[in-house]
């Protein structure tokens, strides 16, 4: 037979979920491609370790795939994935705290290189850095600032940190975060308010510059 025609299947999130529920591997790959960076960044900022964050992010997609039959269509895929990610982060904290108690304490490692850091420093993947950020001094300053912000975020209680990350970094609305955290809207606003107050105190030396 001759060449096959390419069939265009719908690619909205809803359509991808439906195709995924029918065990279409291409739809699953598309969801992973769309959301892996967002979920990874959230998980990484929540638990602070790159390798562990990648492991958790992969587990998010595995769990999503396994839970597809129970997915309720009124939720968006974004809120669903972040909800799974949040639950897996909590599981990871518990495991980690048990391990730390057994080993007598361990500090959070900030071992992953961000886009702003120069290649060759520390572990993690190779990243193409935009031309405008190639000045070494600026890159180092941004990397240092990132470390300080990450350290300040790590000081926050988990629930506050989650709200700050979801709202200020991932850009989710109060309503979406309330769905993810299963909290009233007022609770989310209150957590965000308190988190920002704490961050303002922790980051005061960097606010002037």
């Amino acid at each position, binding site marked *: 037979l001759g060449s096959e*025609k390419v069939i265009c299947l719908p690619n909205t999130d809803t359509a991808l979920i439906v195709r995924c529920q029918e065990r279409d591997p291409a739809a699953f790959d598309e969801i992973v491609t769309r959301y892996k960076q967002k979920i990874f960044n959230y998980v990484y*900022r929540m638990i602070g370790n790159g390798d562990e964050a990648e492991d958790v*992010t992969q587990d998010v997609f595995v769990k999503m795939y396994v839970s597809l039959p129970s997915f309720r269509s009124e939720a968006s895929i974004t809120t669903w994935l972040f909800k799974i990610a949040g639950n897996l982060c909590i599981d990871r904290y518990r495991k980690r705290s048990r391990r730390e108690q057994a080993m007598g304490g361990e500090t959070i490692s900030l071992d992953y290189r961000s886009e702003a850091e120069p290649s060759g420093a520390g572990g993690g993947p190779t990243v193409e850095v935009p031309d405008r950020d190639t000045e070494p001094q600026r890159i180092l300053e941004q990397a240092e600032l990132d470390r300080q912000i990450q350290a300040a975020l790590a000081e926050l209680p988990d629930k506050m940190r989650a709200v700050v990350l979801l709202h200020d970094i991932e850009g989710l609305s109060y309503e979406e975060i309330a769905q993810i955290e299963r909290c009233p809207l007022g609770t989310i606003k209150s957590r965000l308010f308190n988190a920002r107050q704490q961050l303002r105190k922790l980051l005061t030396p960097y606010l002037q510059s």
Partner: protein
Amino acid sequence: MSKECSQARGLLSEYVDGSLSADSAWQVRMHLTVCADCAEALQQLRATVALVRGLSRVQVSADFDAKLAAKMSGLMPRHPSRSTTVDNLKRALRIAAIRWQDGPRLLIAGAGAAMACAVVALAMLSPNFVGTASRVQTYRSQSPIASFASVPSADLAFVAACSNQHAQYESNQSIADPTADIVAARVDEAGAASTGAAAADSGNLAYSTDTE
């Protein structure tokens, strides 16, 4: 801190996000014009939020997908079944059902579909369609191999158009009919025999093989 300052500070976070009601936002704005401390607090809050938002994005490692694939092995079907027309229809209905909450857009789409159905129904009642349908009935009653040699070129164009339409919707499916190859060969033969006349009738006579 005065009562007004306390109230304004409690709203600053939402004020920065632009999520306050117009009335509340106006009250905060009015207070900020007369209270330097609260205006300073607002600047610091804005700077804090800007710092956090400026946090660099981290990238997954190059082997992320491979590791995920290893975790997924055993969960994914090895040979996914090719979707049939019925599968595609079921999927479309499920997607439509999920999107039903979008209401108005779907109502417009539904109205469009209803109009399309009405147009098809009118077309079926028209004399041209009845003539075409009767010709198809005639060919059905004859042996396919015997009949195609005497098929008029205009009707061959109709058969080719049906075939193309079928291929458009079913291009990932082979035709299950065991006589399909024989029929296609006869169409080709008849088409070659009446090339001149057919070309005059229609430029779309040739059977499209790239969709088989």
